[in-house]
């Protein structure tokens, strides 16, 4: 058993899953926003990064790690809600390029603003769990307490989101507003409020992803979510922007693919893995692998 755990195959699987769950969370947050407002939020990663900066710098004031996580998520949700109200709401009904461009602009503002406030140097955050890998019979197991923590936290968040949408009244209203806004409005659901809540939820999930990423060995810096966003987007597109389960599966797939390319070819070509998967998936099903309705929106 320990020989199996220390094998290079398991090393790559653990490494791929650890990175994959972060992609999955970003993909999930993109899908939530897409479902509620049909906007692809290019500032998703930057918004999460910004929230993480505000939350995690509280550690410097002696506030505990977990409180800082909660602050990050809360700030993320507030930023998400405000973004929908101020930047996105005026653009409903405009050509689809308009919200994309506005969110790209917002991405630029957030990254520059963060660098102006907190500098663009890497900031290491004291992680709650050790990042030193386990050993078995003198050989390395490519799992650390921190990696186990990040996988478990990500799974909990995904289950929480699933439960919210499936079993709560709010979740039902959110789904109804996304599927049939006109009917929902007639039934007394305040659709515009649901759109804002969708953005808040999405930004909260994104903030968790950024917190995990920043607590890991890469640390926190203004562009630290750029690569994660690209991979998260690819994951969401592979799964189909309509499908939360597809987003999660897509994230894990991209994470594993990158890890195996990194290990068996070169770290530099790892981003290629995501693109190849995306192109193949989109050639097979242009609306994503997990989307049920293949009809095109005009």
């Amino acid at each position: 058993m320990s020989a199996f755990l220390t094998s290079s195959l398991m090393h790559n699987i653990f490494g791929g899953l650890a990175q994959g769950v972060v992609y999955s969370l970003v993909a999930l947050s993109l899908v939530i926003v897409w479902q509620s407002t049909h906007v692809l939020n290019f500032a998703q990663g930057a918004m999460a990064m910004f929230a993480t900066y505000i939350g995690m710098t509280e550690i410097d004031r002696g506030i505990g790690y977990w409180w800082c996580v909660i602050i990050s998520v809360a700030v993320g949700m507030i930023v998400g809600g405000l973004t929908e109200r101020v930047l996105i709401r005026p653009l409903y009904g405009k050509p689809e390029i308009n919200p994309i461009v506005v969110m790209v602009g917002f991405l630029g503002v957030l990254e520059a603003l963060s660098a102006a406030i907190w500098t663009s140097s890497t900031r290491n955050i004291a992680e709650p769990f050790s990042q030193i890998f386990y050993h078995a019979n003198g050989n390395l197991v490519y799992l650390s307490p921190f990696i186990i923590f990040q996988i478990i936290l990500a799974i909990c968040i995904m289950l929480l989101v699933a439960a919210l949408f499936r079993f709560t009244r709010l979740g039902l209203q959110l789904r109804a507003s996304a599927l049939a806004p006109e009917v929902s409005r007639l039934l007394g659901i305040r659709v515009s409020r649901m759109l804002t809540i969708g953005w808040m939820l999405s930004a909260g999930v994104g903030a968790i992803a950024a917190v995990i990423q920043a607590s890991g060995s890469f640390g926190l810096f203004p562009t630290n979510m750029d690569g994660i966003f690209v991979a998260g987007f690819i994951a969401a597109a592979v799964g189909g922007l309509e499908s939360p389960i597809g987003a999660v599966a897509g994230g894990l797939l991209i994470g594993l693919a990158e890890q195996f390319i990194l290990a068996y070819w070169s770290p530099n070509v790892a981003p290629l893995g995501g693109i190849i998967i995306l192109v193949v998936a989109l050639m097979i099903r242009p609306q994503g692998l997990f989307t049920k309705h293949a009809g095109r929106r005009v």
Partner: protein
Amino acid sequence: MDWWRSFFRQESTHSRLIGVTALAALTLAITFVLPPVANSELAGGAAIAIVILGLSWLIGWSGQISLGNSGFMAVGAYAAGIWAHHHNTTPLVFTLALAIVAGGLSGLIIAIPSTRLRGPYLAGLTLAFAAAVTPIAQNFTSVTGGEGGIFLNSLVTPSWFGHLFSGANAVINANAQWTADLAVVVAAVSFFFMANLFHSRTGRAMRLVRDNDVAAELMGVDLLRTRSSAFMIAAAYAGLGGALYSLLEASVRPETFPLTLSITLLTLMVLGGIGTLSGAVIGGIIYSFSADLVAHVNSLTGVNPTSNLGANMQGIIFGVLLILTMMFAPRGLVSLRTPIQKLFRILRPRRQTPDLGELH
């Protein structure tokens, strides 16, 4: 002035040639009075204007979005750079042609899956492409020089040009102005071709596809071919601009093409005005002198330019401008009623809406 306007509104190749030439001549004349540092900045701006024009064509005329133009620039730059590194005596025209072909081919490869995609999927795929190009280039160190890059000495000021200058700083002034003039001429040729493309059958078909692809298909327009050719042309322009930029920089290095460059390009295009020649000119001018602009803002507001805020002022200003422009003047600075607009109008396409009748 009516005769002037009507003359340029004649949509003949001839009038466009004269229009572009006049603008280029004006710019060339200006390079004689600019200080050498400003000439170097202008040269970079001319190269970037070519890329912006391609992007403007793609988004404004074919309705497809690309966040991958920094990637296409890198492809063109590496193609030209690798060639020029080994064949230093190749005429510049050939090196640049190589970049156009390489950029166009990369555009075609991306276009094949892309033409089946709309909006967000397309934006994301091109973004992923831009994110992957430079790491992949770095992987093949023996060909691309890895992270260090390739160093070029292809742009040598000809002696006849150098002889126009005298004085203690003659060499410096001549070199800076030669690069600026060269870049302006290459940009002018690219602008002339695009001006003709706007008014060609392809251009009209493109707008029809953008506005109503079902109708276009009914009228016999091949959607796949039209969309992928739009991508190819935009990528070829990006390849040319990227190669020219790298020749001016005398090196091809991965850090010239960060992901943020795609965002900068989009910003400049939107600021100038989507789908117009003058928008690309304005975008290029803003790029050229953005550092001076930011320095000016810093000195106006009393911000220390080497503080964190001062160093990131450009990102903040560009981002805010992009958001405000898209929300309040989505057709860009060119749509604002100013005297400059009248000057630039001579270069704008006459009609912004497609005319179905023209397709026959």
